[in-house]
């Protein structure tokens, strides 16, 4: 319950101005590069073009081709380059453009980056950051829209962060780069252009620490990534009905800050977990199980999960809209939880 204040205690309270999510990411990355000469960026069209999502705009101008590297379409070699360079003390940021492309380099992430420190008896670390854009909503269809955080969160040795807004996009990116472990930063495609208040100077957001995005007494909604905004919108809708929901943003899904969740459940006694990824085998299952393991006695209703149906992401906008959870489904889920006494 004190996590909110703890988290904000380590982030500076300074003059802010509005910045888009993608610009906030870009600023955090640039500042981390200025802070540490060992940070470099490699990926397809990241340097000359500035990234297909404008994530790397202007960085080539400032940092030059030594630190901003355009690579061939060779994701396995790209991540491997990052692993090897990290093992030798650099702090690579490698970009996978669309998260779906991890399919072609999963070995380097899962079997190499994640396990290297362990298998070397702790003698080295792999301070590798992998940036990528996830999520549906752009009509990009089955091979360009997935949210695969559950794949990665299952692997010991990896960290996974999911920024929900501009402020967290910057802070989590900086922390990912400063972290001595491989961290996957899952940016959300639909959020790229959304603006929010962002401090000007460099700041990190602690990894593995959840944020209480809104306080409430009736239902705890644990929302990942883009679903945080949807949950907050649902909260406004429900508040008008006299229902106050608490919205928890884990920010980091591996490691997962369950303590903040447990504390909330002890107060609200009802939980809904929502993510954009397929419900089956998603993080909602893990979170629900952990809550049941630890705070079962506080629950007035079974933990409810909302996620995508068990299907690839469809193309047609009418299907895609029905596929991705939204504020209406979250509000409906909360009402259902409250119907049970």
């Amino acid at each position, binding site marked *: 319950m004190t996590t909110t204040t703890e988290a904000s205690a380590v982030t500076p309270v300074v003059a802010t101005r509005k910045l888009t999510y993608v610009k906030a990411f870009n600023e955090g990355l640039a500042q981390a590069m200025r802070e540490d000469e060992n940070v470099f960026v490699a990926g397809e069209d990241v340097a000359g073009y500035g990234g297909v999502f404008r994530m790397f705009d202007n960085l080539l101008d400032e940092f030059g081709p030594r630190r901003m590297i355009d690579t061939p379409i*060779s994701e396995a070699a790209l991540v491997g380059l990052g692993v090897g360079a990290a093992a030798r003390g650099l702090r690579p940021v490698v970009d996978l453009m669309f998260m779906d492309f991890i399919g*072609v380099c999963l070995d380097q992430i899962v079997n190499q980056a994640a396990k290297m420190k362990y298998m070397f008896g702790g003698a080295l670390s792999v301070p590798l950051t992998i940036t990528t854009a996830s999520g549906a909503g752009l009509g990009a269809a089955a*091979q360009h829209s997935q949210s695969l955080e559950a794949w990665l969160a299952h692997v010991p040795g990896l960290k996974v962060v999911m920024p929900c807004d501009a402020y967290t996009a910057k802070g989590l990116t900086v922390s990912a780069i400063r972290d001595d472990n491989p961290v996957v930063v899952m940016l959300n495609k639909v959020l790229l252009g959304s603006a929010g208040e962002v401090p000007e100077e460099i700041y990190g957001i602690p990894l593995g620490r959840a944020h209480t995005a809104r306080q409430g007494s009736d239902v705890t909604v644990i929302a990942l990534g883009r679903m945080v905004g949807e949950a907050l919108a649902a909260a406004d809708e429900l508040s008008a009905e006299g229902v106050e929901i608490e919205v928890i943003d884990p920010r980091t899904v591996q490691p997962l800050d369950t303590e903040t969740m447990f504390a909330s459940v002890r107060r609200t006694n009802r939980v809904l977990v929502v993510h954009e990824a397929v419900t089956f085998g998603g993080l909602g299952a893990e979170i629900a199980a952990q809550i049941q393991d630890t705070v079962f006695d506080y629950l007035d209703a079974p933990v409810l999960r909302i996620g995508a149906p068990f299907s690839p992401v469809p193309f047609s906008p009418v299907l895609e809209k029905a596929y991705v959870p939204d504020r209406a489904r979250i509000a409906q889920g909360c009402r259902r939880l409250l119907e049970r006494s």
Partner: protein
Amino acid sequence: MAQRASTTSKKSPQVSTQVSPPVVKDLHERMVRIRLFETEAGRLMEAGKLPGFLHLYVGQEAVAAGVMAALRDDDQITSTHRGHGHAVAKGVGFREMYSELYGRVTGACLGRGGSMHINDLTRGMLGANGIVGAGVPIAVGAAFAARYKGEDSVAVTFFGDGATNIGAFHEGANMAAILGLPVVFVCENNGYAEFTPQSGHMLLTDVADRAAAYGMPSVIVDGMDAIAVHRAATEAVERARAGAGPMMIEAKTYRYFDHQGVKGLRHPYRSDEEVAEWKSRDPVDLIEARAVADGSATRAELDDVWRRTREEIAEAIAYAEASPLPDPADLLLNVYSG
């Protein structure tokens, strides 16, 4: 067992030799169909009517037409994110293609796939693909199946210059070579991978040189000359069908529009002069000039192809626009079969 392929790479002569009038007409018609399909799709996208991404093929028509005219209906192809041209040339219908771009239930993927995933089993079109290089091993598998079943169909895989940097290409090429499978590797070298010029992603001038690493013969052709492509494809397909194993064709070509969408270049990754130079050797103009010059077709006959195709396209777009949207109640459709 596996055929031992020669590793020589050869350049085709600059001027393509004679092909029969019906072949010239066939190539022309396939190219016009692609050109019009694509320019109309681009217009629809610019008008905000199409969701998602659109990677246009305009400029590269000679490659799809030249290769597909050398194939039978039962020959299989795998395609790329820039797949409309391959689909059109293989005979996939305008109606199901436009409907798919619109996300309608009448589309080639029932509205589930969109531009990057158009396929048609009845035409041997094993799919466009959103993952660069992913179609290469799939074509190898299709060729394997043909041989396994004792059929004499071949598989053709299309990929870009950029795609040859990915493991799937190299693994697929080696697999096809060592198993001696009937696969034709067609590299559409348009000089760019997204916004990176070829010189920025490989040190080779000719992608065809990569074939040698797998013991696969290769040929380089002018990808703006449909007849040159067709002749090379015919040879490669015949070889493969006869059991002589895989071969690579590198077609040097160009895309007129941006990597994605029509235009809106935020970044001058190629010069106007370069684009203009390639356009001065437009593949459709080339085949028309050639057809008229050698008497393969009259100007009126060529014009008629444009007119008929325009009508067919207008009808297909109207059909797509009038088609129903998919029903969200069917979200789980086809996740599993049976």
